[in-house]
């Protein structure tokens, strides 16, 4: 195992499943024998605010936080949150963005404006963004909560271990708790993975640290 650290920043808003996604990534890395640290956010952030989780793994991880400018992958469950955290990425890092727009009350009331096109803003800054509607995939499979699995599927080709390891971690959790959900999660994972590949188009696999 090399001593390079993989840094994944998962972001979104309270209640979207950011913590669960981060936990699954962390558990997969543990199963692969990595040292892992994962930061949690609690307290006031639970109440509809901004939520992030830092997942770091490698042969030995020191700091639990990702230093700005060093994230390999940004997993954004909400598009404006993707733009908010894009500066955390290292040069050549990948932002995997769900295009859903969640409007907070301060925007809805007209105190602030929701940006027209956060993805365009990110691209204009030079960020590599793969954006797609994970919610549409989840809806087509019958359960909006599948967004979590869709997004994990989307980043599965950008990790320093095979996509199947991440998939197995997710399916294993459902096998233990909700066996009826295994098949649909498998589909969600595959469709997320396909969506990301389509968005990446011909560009080469930018796998973290490989």
């Amino acid at each position, binding site marked *: 195992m090399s001593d390079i650290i993989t840094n994944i920043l998962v972001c979104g*808003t*309270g209640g979207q499943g950011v913590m669960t996604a981060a*936990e699954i990534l*962390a558990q997969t890395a*543990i199963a692969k024998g990595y040292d*892992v*640290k*994962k*930061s*949690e*956010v*609690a*307290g*006031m*952030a*639970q*109440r*509809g*605010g*901004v939520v992030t989780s830092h997942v770091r793994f490698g042969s030995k*991880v*020191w*700091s*639990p*936080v990702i*230093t*700005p*400018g060093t994230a390999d992958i940004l997993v954004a469950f909400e598009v*404006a*949150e993707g*733009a*908010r955290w*894009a*500066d955390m*990425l*290292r*040069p050549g890092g990948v932002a995997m963005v769900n295009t859903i727009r969640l*409007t*907070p*009350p*301060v*925007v*809805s*009331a*007209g*105190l*602030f*404006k*929701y*940006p027209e096109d*956060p993805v365009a*803003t*990110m691209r204009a*800054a*030079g*960020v590599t963004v793969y954006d797609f509607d994970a919610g549409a995939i989840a*809806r087509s499979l*019958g*359960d*909006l909560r599948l967004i979590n699995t869709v997004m994990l599927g989307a980043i599965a080709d950008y990790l320093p271990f095979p996509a199947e390891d991440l998939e197995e971690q997710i399916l294993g959790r459902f096998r233990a708790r909700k066996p009826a959900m295994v098949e649909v999660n498998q589909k969600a994972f595959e469709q997320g993975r396909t969506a990301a590949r389509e968005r990446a188009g011909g560009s080469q696999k930018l796998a973290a640290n490989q």
Partner: protein
Amino acid sequence: MSAAVQAKAASRLLLSGNEAIARGVWEAGVKVAAAYPGTPSTEMLENIALYPDLYAEWSVNEKVSLEVAIGASMSGARAFCAMKHVGMNVASDAFMTQTLAGVVGGLVVAVADDVGLSSSQNEQDTRFWGRFAHVPVLEPADSQEAYDMVKAAFDLSEQYNTPVILRLTTRVCHVKAMVTVGEKDERAIKGFDITQKRWVMTPNNAKVLLPKQIAREDELRKASEASGLNLVDNGSDTRVGFVTSGPAFMHVRESFPDAPVLKLGFSYPLPVEAIKAFRATVDALVVVEETEPLIENELKAAGLSDIHGKDILPRLGELTPNVLIPAIYRLRGEEPPPATTYPKYEPFPRPPTMCPACPHMGVYYTLSRLRKRVQISGDIGCYTLGAGHPWNALDTTISMGASMGIALGMDKARSEETKDKAVVSVIGDSTFLHMGMQGLLDIVYNRGNVTTLILDNRTTGMTGGQHHAGTGKDLNGQEAPRVDFATLCTALGVSPERIHKVDPYKLPVLFKLIRQEIEIDGPSVIITDRPCVLSEFYGKLTPYRVVDDKCTGCGNCINVGCPAISVSKTEVVKRDGAPDIVKKYTTIDTAMCTGCHMCVESCGPKAILPAQPVAVE
């Protein structure tokens, strides 16, 4: 349930610092553990309660939780107490004398500092208490160390006859990292010995103990100098060496992997001689401590004048690599490397909001209608959000239970301008029981003119929904005696006819009641009694929708502040000689709406009607 509860010895698990401490507490043979919830410390007791063979409780406040632990220690049991940093302010009265009296069973107090203020009213450095109370301070840097050090703390406590502070920060409590767990240490309770008079701290008894406490501190200093918890991590790049403690160590190692580091796990008493020896091995020494310059000042007082610390590093917040790296480069006379490639972008703020159907919204919507006539002293909990948009209906938040004392002070210090304003205090159920009752008693006793709103949502909401003496359940979810707030307020001397219970969803009723009570002199209490929507006591109802052709765009429902309601369309109406009117037509997210009907009550044209429950497509 945390995987740690079932884990066999030698298992390796991904645990938060709080989960790791819970396992360590159980393995250390603790028999009694107590706490009042507070971010980031809450999960310690929640996890401890999952283990067998020990007693764990939510106490009414941190001082009581420490007293429970003290009583158990006096009885020869190992005892543990957890709190957030501001909890120690409350507990300190008991703590400052217990340090003199000592322990029988090991007594460890875990105090979690919210460095960076993720969910607190201030940022204070618990390490001061070690110096103030003459007790040792251990500072873990991650989950494994938190687990190891809580066990070490019990041994230290018994060996030196002293309570021990386990100082944590948010980055220990709420970071998950790998932990190898061990075996449970079985130990029996010795029982309380009535022949001993050591616990009666009269001046004469205390006087005898003072020199012993000083001698104990000298012994602890020797122990710290020799402790394996303070260790030098060698490095080849001796241009700058670091003295550091807690998670700051991790940030230092991350930033400068080749630098020599003296890591302090047993940080008080400070091992000054060991640090002096380390100083001689490096060109420059930087003390990296979160948050106050305690180590730095002590080293300077001990003659190490040629060191750096807060001259190059901030005195607040986390000392993460993006803070450390530029500071150390500049110290070395080098240009710092560029931090980030992509620019920082701030789309809009996304502050925490109240939940859909939160009963607090009814209270703040009503207070916002009376805004010009009232000054509102607030307290600590979810309802502090009432200070924000769209209610702007809370004027003070200082400390737990402060709303009523502050309200009385406001009442007694009226100006010509404010003499006709009503003074209202707003406090939650758990906070009222924590430290609010005394404030209300003071209002009654001193004939104050204050209307107190007790927002009883039957939980400790902000910390994630813990039980308390007013919920009818205990830490383990078992049935427990439930305090009756109205009876309690009567006992404190509020006239029974000035105590009202009201459903905060019934906005017109609430409005009339508050208006009535603020117009009558003397203390009064209004208790709102809808449960927190995240609690087990909340029942979801049929959601609502906005009928588009009935909505007149008045925006009243938006002012309720519910996150399920949003503006679908705005329209500017020009008026001659008067400011424009902005009409806000609204829509309700039926998937979020739980049918509390507060918005229905705010809607003049009756444009909000029940929707069929919308199943997930």
